[in-house]
């Protein structure tokens, strides 16, 4: 064969093989083309060539992505592997809020907070504030150095001065006060004790922004214990709440939500659920989840509770107390009957900060025999210890110049105490003022010395949220700034040379290690505790024999004495679920988190009922509203109005926590400080104001609201609900089952399709959301924001309806309209929420449709279907036509209208606009460019990690190992994520999946439904019907 290979000559030169040719044969271009630098200088052609090349090179260079340097470890830390996350158990303490957490770190930086499932106290869930706290770590507004009179100093210099000043004061016997929120940490208390030992004239003043002083004092007088009992809502069949938002903000909402949800979950084997009554002025999260809710005035709370006492007392045969009758006794009587019927398994709870009211509440619980079952003194809750009376005395002393030294330990009373203005103006009278705050806040800006504390993620600490339940905090990152833990400062100033870490360790060795017998070696014990994050000691119930010894009658007399009829408009403040008391106000994730009820973010507002708004001539539509001047007591503030269904007539509400002036760039000037409207006296802080007057300013205003339409328009494909009685009779009660007409008779919508469907051979991811146990707390939506690097767009862009949330919680109110009435009046009735509506929360994210309408319309196939049932978004391919978003029936797709990262126009998006903030970004999720569409991915990065881990170990992923951020955060386990192909997974069990004869799977659970089933998009997210434990729902009325 080889002989036959022909050779074609390129030319005669090749045949001749002349040397010139051979030299150039393998060169692509002849020699004369390259730019020559001959002696005659560059020719014009060369100039053009060079210029052409230059322009091309410059433009090519301009196209190239900027080089980002990745610096490898010189010495790799043992436990840090690039791209592998580490998890550390720790404890979140903010103010006096507590949550046991697990911190996810990547390459040494904390990027996500999750609940610690081992914690008895917080139960494994999180709140929005806990989720967002990781960004507060990377807040550029934190102090970077200790300060003296506004200038940075060294720690040594500061310590020397502090010690000498304190020494002088102590030597002269001058009063030194440490003002603090409730201290949950036993070791901190000991460290302060060491400090006090060095300066004996020191006293600790404890207060809480949301005070529990009244309840604590009531318990002291009723039981002899100044603490709160542990609540077991999971054992309560009937719960009656008087303005206590235990699902949102009261005491320990994470655990309370979990407990409450346990009693609300239904299934084939559990057809009973608890009943919740709520008597309140503002529509709170608890009220929104109540089966029966009565709007009442704050001044009447005591009367209602007194009347409830009498109703119960009549049944129990106890003497009645003298209290005025209330108008509406129907619901109250019903509540009393239910309470009595579930004696020993009920809870009455009130949020009033009033000793008399709380005493009557204690008396009711006592009559009902709830102590020892639903309310327990076995492990009293220690997170709230504030004493309003002491604080009041402190303010008086300070203003009279009796206090020589003040140390503000991580608190900001100038802002968050009703007498803050007095404190602020009197601080100059003290010789020595110091704050340990992490920023120059309202209080800190008025003190001389600042010894900035670490963030909790940089700190060693311990906590005892409830008696006998301990937990540890460990640093997940070393100090970012030149800060020092406040406890360490106390030790230093108290002349103790040990580090706080050793101090805690020593403390634990002495107490907890000694109290247990299982582990013999302290280091092992310590490591174990640190690994678990929690240590639950032997639950020695020393206090269970506590007897009620309160005087309900005396309390009733006091209540009656205080009550004044006809107090005009009353203002009720409440703690915002997003911002709390304002400690984390500079956290943009929380600022942009819409209020679960009003869906307003980036400010506080005055909420009022439709009737009050009508009286004032105020109209609110599509976020357009009016600003009003609110005169409460001596203060006048200007706030926008939000018409809030469910607001009690004659009352208005306003959230605390806003109106910070020195919290940082994000928070400053957002909203109005409602603490300044409140009053405080020796009996405690009063969280409502009577005799409020409101004048419309006439200034129209557009409020940032993420949802402007109130009702679900009777659309049963969206919200399906029933009463408990109906559910018991028929598990599919309330289900809407559309049928599609076809030539072979009516068929289920999913049975008719143009599409062949997808085959899932490995996994098929799905999600179940139980509308019954979702309380609407929004922890999931913030968790999603953290996990998926979702930008904060700022108020202006929320006003423009462009928030980026991948997961939103739709909130619907019931209406008095009739959905059968298709006339225009009928429809406009449906649009109006009831005066006191029933509320439904529906977490809504990408439904991962099997027949996804978005996938078919994308011209460039940027959104496609995965082999595991996910509807995936390829950002790099997206050209941003927005056709997919328009065609999404659920409207869950979010478009990058602007470049949100590295853009000075979005300063509030701190997690993408400064080098420090960027450390919080999840490296597994890309930061999206301008002009591309994005949406929920079912946390595909977590799925991939989970699958990879299983693969490395040569096994299938185990159910529960892979979960989305929302499902993990959910305190009530209302969101369950899993593999529908795995018959043992929780999702398969919940949906009761079974194979049909055709080889498909069928959902047997009667409560499960797909939203918009009839349009045949076949979502992979299932909702369980909402069941209300009441006779007749509003929507049926």
């Amino acid at each position, binding site marked *: 064969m080889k002989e036959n290979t022909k050779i074609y000559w390129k030319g005669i030169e090749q045949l001749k093989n002349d040397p010139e040719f051979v030299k150039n044969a393998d060169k692509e271009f002849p020699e004369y083309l390259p730019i020559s630098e001959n002696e005659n200088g560059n020719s014009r052609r060369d100039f053009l060539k060079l210029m052409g090349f230059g322009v091309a090179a410059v433009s090519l260079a301009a196209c190239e992505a900027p080089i980002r340097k990745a610096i490898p470890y010189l010495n790799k830390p043992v436990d840090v592997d690039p791209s592998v996350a580490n998890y550390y158990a720790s404890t979140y303490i903010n103010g006096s809020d507590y949550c046991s957490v697990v911190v996810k770190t990547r390459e040494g930086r904390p990027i996500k907070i999750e609940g610690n499932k081992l914690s008895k106290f917080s139960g494994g869930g999180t709140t929005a504030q806990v989720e967002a706290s990781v960004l507060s770590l990377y807040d550029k507004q934190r102090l970077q150095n200790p300060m003296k009179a506004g200038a940075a100093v060294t720690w040594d210099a500061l310590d020397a001065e502090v010690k000498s000043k304190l020494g002088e004061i102590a030597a002269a016997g001058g009063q030194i006060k440490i003002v603090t929120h409730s201290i949950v940490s036993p070791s901190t208390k000991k460290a302060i004790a060491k400090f006090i030992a060095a300066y004996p004239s020191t006293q600790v003043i404890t207060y809480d922004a949301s005070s529990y002083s009244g309840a604590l004092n009531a318990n002291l007088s009723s039981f002899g214990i100044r603490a709160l009992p542990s609540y077991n809502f999971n054992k309560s069949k009937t719960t009656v709440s008087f303005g206590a938002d235990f699902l949102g903000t009261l005491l320990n909402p994470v655990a309370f939500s979990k407990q409450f949800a346990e009693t609300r979950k239904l299934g084939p084997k559990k057809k009973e659920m608890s009943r919740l009554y709520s008597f309140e002025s503002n529509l709170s999260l608890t009220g929104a989840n109540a089966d029966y809710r009565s709007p009442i005035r704050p001044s009447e709370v005591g009367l209602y509770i007194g009347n409830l006492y009498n109703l119960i007392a009549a049944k129990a045969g106890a003497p009645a107390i003298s209290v005025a009758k209330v108008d509406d006794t129907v619901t109250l009587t019903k509540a009393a009957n239910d309470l009595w019927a579930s004696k020993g398994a009920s809870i009455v709870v009130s949020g009033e900060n009033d000793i008399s009211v709380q005493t009557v509440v204690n008396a009711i619980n006592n009559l009902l025999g709830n102590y020892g079952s639903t309310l327990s003194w076995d492990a009293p809750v220690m997170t709230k210890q504030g004493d309003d009376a002491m604080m009041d005395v402190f303010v008086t002393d300070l203003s009279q110049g009796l206090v020589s030294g003040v140390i503000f330990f991580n608190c900001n009373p100038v802002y968050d105490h009703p007498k803050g203005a007095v404190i602020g103006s009197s601080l100059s009278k003290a010789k020595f003022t110091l704050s340990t705050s992490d920023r120059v806040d309202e209080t800190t800006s008025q003190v001389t010395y600042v010894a900035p504390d670490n963030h909790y993620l940089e700190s060693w600490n311990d906590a005892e949220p409830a008696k006998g339940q301990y937990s540890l905090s460990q640093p997940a990152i070393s100090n970012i700034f030149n800060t020092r833990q406040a406890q360490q400062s106390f030790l230093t100033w108290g002349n103790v040379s040990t580090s706080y870490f050793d101090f805690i360790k020593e403390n634990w060795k002495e107490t907890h290690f000694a109290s247990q017998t299982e582990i013999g070696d302290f280091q092992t014990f310590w490591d174990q505790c640190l690994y678990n994050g929690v240590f639950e000691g032997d639950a020695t119930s020393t206090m269970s024999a506590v007897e009620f010894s309160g005087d309900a009658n005396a309390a009733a007399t006091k209540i009656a004495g205080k009550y004044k009829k006809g107090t005009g408009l009353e203002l009720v403040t409440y703690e915002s679920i997003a911002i709390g008391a304002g400690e984390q106000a500079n956290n943009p994730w929380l600022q942009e988190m819409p209020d679960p009820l009003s869906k307003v973010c980036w400010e506080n507002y005055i909420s009022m009922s439709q009737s009050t708004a009508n009286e004032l001539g105020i109209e609110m539509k*599509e976020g357009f509203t009016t600003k009003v001047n609110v005169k409460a007591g001596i203060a006048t503030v200007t706030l926008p109005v939000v018409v809030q269904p469910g607001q009690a007539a004659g009352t208005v509400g306003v959230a605390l926590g806003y109106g910070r002036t020195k919290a940082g760039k994000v928070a400053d000037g957002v909203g109005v400080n409602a603490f300044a409207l409140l009053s405080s006296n020796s009996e405690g802080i009063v969280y409502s104001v009577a005799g409020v007057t409101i004048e419309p300013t006439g200034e129209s205003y557009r409020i940032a609201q993420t*949802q*402007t*339409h109130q*009702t*679900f*328009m009777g*659309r049963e*494909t*969206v919200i399906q609900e029933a009463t408990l009685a109906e559910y018991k009779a028929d598990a599919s009660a309330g289900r809407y089952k559309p049928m599609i007409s076809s030539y072979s008779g009516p068929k289920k919508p999913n049975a008719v399709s143009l599409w062949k469907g997808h085959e899932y051979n490995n996994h098929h991811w799905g999600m179940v959301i139980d509308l019954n146990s979702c309380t609407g707390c929004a922890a999931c939506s913030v968790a999603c924001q953290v996990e998926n690097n979702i930008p904060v767009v700022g108020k202006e*862009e929320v006003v*423009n*309806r*462009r*928030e980026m949330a991948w997961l*939103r919680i*739709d*909130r*619907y109110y019931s209406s008095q309209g009739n959905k059968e009435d*298709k006339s*225009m009046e009928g*429809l406009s009735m449906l649009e109006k929420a009831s005066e006191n509506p029933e509320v439904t929360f*529906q977490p*809504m994210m990408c439904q991962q449709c099997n027949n996804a*309408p978005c996938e*078919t*319309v*994308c*011209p*460039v*196939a940027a959104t496609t279907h995965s082999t595991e049932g996910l509807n995936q978004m390829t950002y790099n*391919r*997206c*050209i*941003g*036509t*927005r*056709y997919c*978003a*328009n*065609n999404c*029936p*659920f*409207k869950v*797709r*979010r*478009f*990058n*209208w*602007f*470049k949100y990262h590295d853009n000075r126009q979005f300063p509030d998006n701190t997690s993408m606009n400064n080098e420090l903030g960027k450390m919080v970004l999840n490296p597994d999720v890309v930061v999206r*460019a*301008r*002009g*591309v*569409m994005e949406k929920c991915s079912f946390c595909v990065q977590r799925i991939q990690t989970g699958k990879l881990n299983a693969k490395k170990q040569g096994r299938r992923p185990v159910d529960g190992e892979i979960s989305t951020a929302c499902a993990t955060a959910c305190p009530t386990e209302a969101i369950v994520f899993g593999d529908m192909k795995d018959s043992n997974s929780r999702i398969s069990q919940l949906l009761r999946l079974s194979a049909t004869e055709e080889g498909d799977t069928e959902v047997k659970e009667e409560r499960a439904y797909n*939203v*918009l089933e009839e*349009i045949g*998009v076949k979502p992979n997210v299932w909702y369980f019907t909402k069941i209300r434990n009441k006779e007749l729902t509003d929507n049926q009325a």
Partner: protein
Amino acid sequence: MQAVASVRKPLVTNGKTVHDVTEDICSRVEQKPTKTWMVAFTFALALLIVGGYAVYRTVWDGIGMWGLNKTVGWAWDITNFVWWVGIGHAGTLISAILLLFRQKWRMSINRAAEAMTIFAVICALMFPILHMGRPWLGMYWAIPLPNTFGSLWVNFNSPLLWDFFAISTYFSVSLVFWYIGLIPDFATIRDRATGPIAKAVYGALSFAWDGAAKTWSRYESVALILAGLATPLVLSVHTIVSFDFATSVIPGWHTTIFPPYFVAGAIFSGFAMVLTLLLVTRKVYKLEDYITIEHIELMNIVIIITGSIVGVAYITELFIAWYSGVEYEQYAFINRVSGPYWWAYASMMTCNVISPQLFWFKKIRTNLASTFVLSIVVNIGMWFERFVIIVTSIHRDYLPSSWAMFYPTRYDVGMYMFSFGFFFTAFLLFAKYFPVINIAEVKSIIISDSEKAKK
């Protein structure tokens, strides 16, 4: 029985001779620009520049400059797109379909109508490109080009891709058709040209037209073939544009009546735009003898017919919404009529259905002023029609939680101005430098008067 047709009125009045035709039309090209033209051109250019700022900000900062939001993903952008495409329908309809039907009256208006088509389609094409989040990529990623990105390919299921094919085809055919018609006229101008630049430019533009009988014969064959090709396009383009909506799942969009309804609407608005422009051109260029009242009346009749078709379509939509029994469909239409955008629906109904009915009166349809006003009214109505379809359907679709309003920003207005600026600039340049009436064709319909020619 024998039917005897009455003698038709001449299409070109006032006994114009072949020479007059050449003079009347070429002189406009040869003269210096008039003051009116300069003023108009300055205005158009100003519009283009001001609008250009809106385009710049949109491309530089992002689509967020517009009033769109999470619920309403398309508003003025696609409204303008569909509106301009609609306007772009008249030219080809006049030149192709009327050519096939041997409607000779079209001859004096087809040139301008086709030019308008071309410019309108360019205006339309701006919006799909500029409405993209990343137009610098989307411009070519949406085209099925062989690429080095791996297995990336366009999605043939997407109506947006069909749009791309439909409009680019329509644009190329219209352009070629228009240009071929221009060649003999360019040759006329070339032959008359005195200056060297004009000679060179028109010489190049006329592709060395020699006016030989064979050339004429080829010219006519090509015109006929292109007319045949263009005819289905007139129907297909707007049909496919309507698929953008019809194939979606959104109530108010998902409607099978859309293709014929859109085509009728397109012809309706296209004729209205032709009238608006021609009435001005006719007046300014003193072309009353070429574009006669009869032309105007005939076009007004087309407007009544298509306007009525559109009206029937609107009513059918309402009927079907009720008849379907689909809750969402019903709500979508009740919301259109009585929701927050009721005024847009009312404007659409008034402008598109009620106002063209005035043309039943001969006095109105033969009156220049009323025709001019109504032609503008119709286009306002057609803009609202697209706005109503797009915005009122998506602003309140399935889940009430997402319901939102759309408020345009100044950049939305700016983008629209930009397209107008371009359109008028281009049209004015055309009117000045190109023969606005097809000289060659019009010559074939004048009644030659040898006596007059001899004078």
